[in-house]
């Protein structure tokens, strides 16, 4: 089990926050692969609070806004940033990008660019855990928008029916692109749905990372014991949906209030108030984190591009022949005549 003390939680959140800020810079510098970059600023407590309760061997899937979750679970920021830049040195050798980072070593079964697409995999991972009796839990992280997808309900129903060690974590940042949660459903109390399928279900306020961590501890341990769970973490998406979105669909006043719900600052204040860390300690920590994340940009930028021939690799297992390139095939065919 990881260290779940507030200083640690704070550090982890700060790392997520700063990493995401650097992703934004990478984009501005024109060095990201595309503009489909979804930053989790404002949602750090969900990532950090839940991941703090995960153990070695546990697995998880994330959505398109998953950098923070994986970072909280122990990712190497260098390889993440390199992947976001589409480089050979990234987690997926430049094939995946921001929305498809995965790492089997850390149990990350993959980020997903399909809203809801990664959810059912945890049911399968739960079946594996039950089969192997290895005590592992599998957690699906997704956004409030994914509650529109039927596959969430199919998956929750299976998990509850089979009493699998599975937790569904809904990071409710209030928006799916430009659609506020109350514009997407008549009942925004999302945990009620999970309860109706027979899961243990709660909503927590993401402002307080310790609250999130506590709720996650309960629900994850419950899941390990055969009571699958659902946790909604309420927070606010501080910025646009993706890098180019300026959120014209929400008003400044709302954003101002929303951005006050800052779990990183809240934890910082709490640390100072409780006398656990001083401003100076915290500034020093923040700077250490900043340096680490700056380095990740350098690492990403310095990384080489994937080689063109890697294109045909990994469609199938390396033991299998690669698909024949169109050009090779055409050469062969036209050599006939």
């Amino acid at each position, binding site marked *: 089990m990881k260290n779940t003390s507030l200083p640690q939680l704070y550090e982890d959140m700060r790392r997520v926050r700063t990493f995401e800020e650097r992703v934004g810079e990478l984009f501005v510098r024109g060095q990201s692969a595309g503009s*489909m970059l979804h930053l989790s600023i404002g949602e750090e407590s969900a990532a950090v609070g839940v991941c703090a309760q995960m153990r070695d061997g546990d697995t998880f899937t994330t959505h398109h806004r998953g950098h923070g979750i994986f970072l909280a679970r122990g990712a190497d920021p260098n390889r993440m940033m390199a992947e976001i830049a*589409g480089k050979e040195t990234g987690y997926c050798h430049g*094939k995946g990008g921001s929305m498809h980072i995965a790492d089997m070593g850390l149990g990350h079964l993959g980020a997903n660019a399909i809203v809801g697409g990664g959810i059912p995999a945890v049911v399968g991972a739960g079946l594996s855990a039950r089969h192997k009796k290895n005590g592992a839990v599998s957690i699906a992280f997704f956004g409030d928008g994914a509650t529109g997808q039927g596959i969430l309900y199919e998956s929750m129903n299976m998990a509850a029916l089979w009493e699998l060690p599975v937790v569904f974590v809904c990071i409710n940042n209030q928006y*799916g692109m430009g659609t506020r949660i109350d514009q997407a459903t008549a009942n925004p109390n999302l945990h009620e749905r999970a309860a109706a399928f027979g899961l243990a279900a709660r909503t927590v306020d993401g402002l307080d990372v310790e609250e999130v961590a506590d709720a996650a501890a309960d629900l994850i341990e419950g899941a390990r014991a055969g009571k699958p769970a659902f946790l909604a973490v309420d927070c606010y998406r501080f910025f646009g949906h993706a890098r180019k979105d300026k959120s014209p669909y929400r008003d400044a006043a709302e954003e101002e209030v929303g951005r006050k719900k800052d779990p990183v600052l809240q934890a910082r204040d709490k640390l100072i108030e409780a006398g656990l860390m001083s401003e100076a300690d915290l500034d020093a920590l923040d700077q250490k984190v900043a340096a680490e994340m700056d380095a990740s940009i350098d690492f990403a930028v310095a990384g080489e591009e994937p080689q063109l021939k890697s*294109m045909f690799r990994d469609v199938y297992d390396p033991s299998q022949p690669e698909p024949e390139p169109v050009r090779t095939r055409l050469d062969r065919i*036209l050599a006939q005549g």
Partner: protein
Amino acid sequence: MAVQETTYRDALRLALSEAMSADNSVIIMGEEVGRYGGAYGVTKDLIKEFGAERVIDTPISEAAIVGAAVGAAMTGLRPVAELMYVDFIGMTMDQLANQAAKIRYMFGGQIGVPMVLRTQGGTGRSAGAQHSQSLEGYVMHTPGLRLAMPATVEDAYHLLRQSLQQPDPVVFIEHKGLYTMKGTLDPNNEPAEWGKAKLLRDGGDLVIVTYSRQVHHALAAAETLASQGIEAAIVDLRTLNPLDFDTIGPLVERSGRAMVVSEGAMTCGVAAELSARITEECFDYLEDPVVRVAGEDIPISVSPLLEQNSVPTPELIVETARKLFT
């Protein structure tokens, strides 16, 4: 409508707006089509003009969006459902292929499903494996579904207006790489007929049959080829169902050589159908096998380098055409 310089995106919006003005039963529904104006801006401000009851923002529920459009079409509306990326068609295939496509037939002709499913596909934005596909092959393989894929500003407008007149479900696939393309819309030009291909460039040495963005790659390639003494005719199919063979056949018979170009994965895709069809119909005239220049049989990478090389480029078209003549 006046003669106007516009873009593919705006031509689409104009078509929607005019159709909605002309026919109160036309509604739009999909994710972010209203307040947000569409992920690619095609429906921008339509909600202001027509209201939230006709430009309907939906939850993220692709299957039910298509299913609801089916029900709306069966009860007298003319829904334009939007699928933000054609890559999401997997969630809708039951509603599309088992319901929309089969309802007229299964029910013995009692009723049709006059809906349009607008979506967009293709590479070009480093959007990765789940946001860059060209999945028209699935649609073309499904009896009962019409399939339109505009390559030009004019067709963006006219094909969409015509799709909204069709008695049967139309899947309308735009190309994400074309939205900002400029062109002229001239109301005095008689629109090309629905279901007819267009000869965009004539040339007696070779016929290149293609559609959507690859039309532009083929046209660019044809310029290069012309400078090298090879004259290619370029056919823009415009609709893949109906498929207009009457335009293609005589051209292939004249030159004896045909290339088909598609961004979709080669195996079992649109290029396969076109190749098979041309060969069947023009066999005695062919000097060489019909060549398929198509998407590689691999997923699309986020790396721009790999992405660009996963689908046909003007260079590959040129290179392949030249090989036909050596």
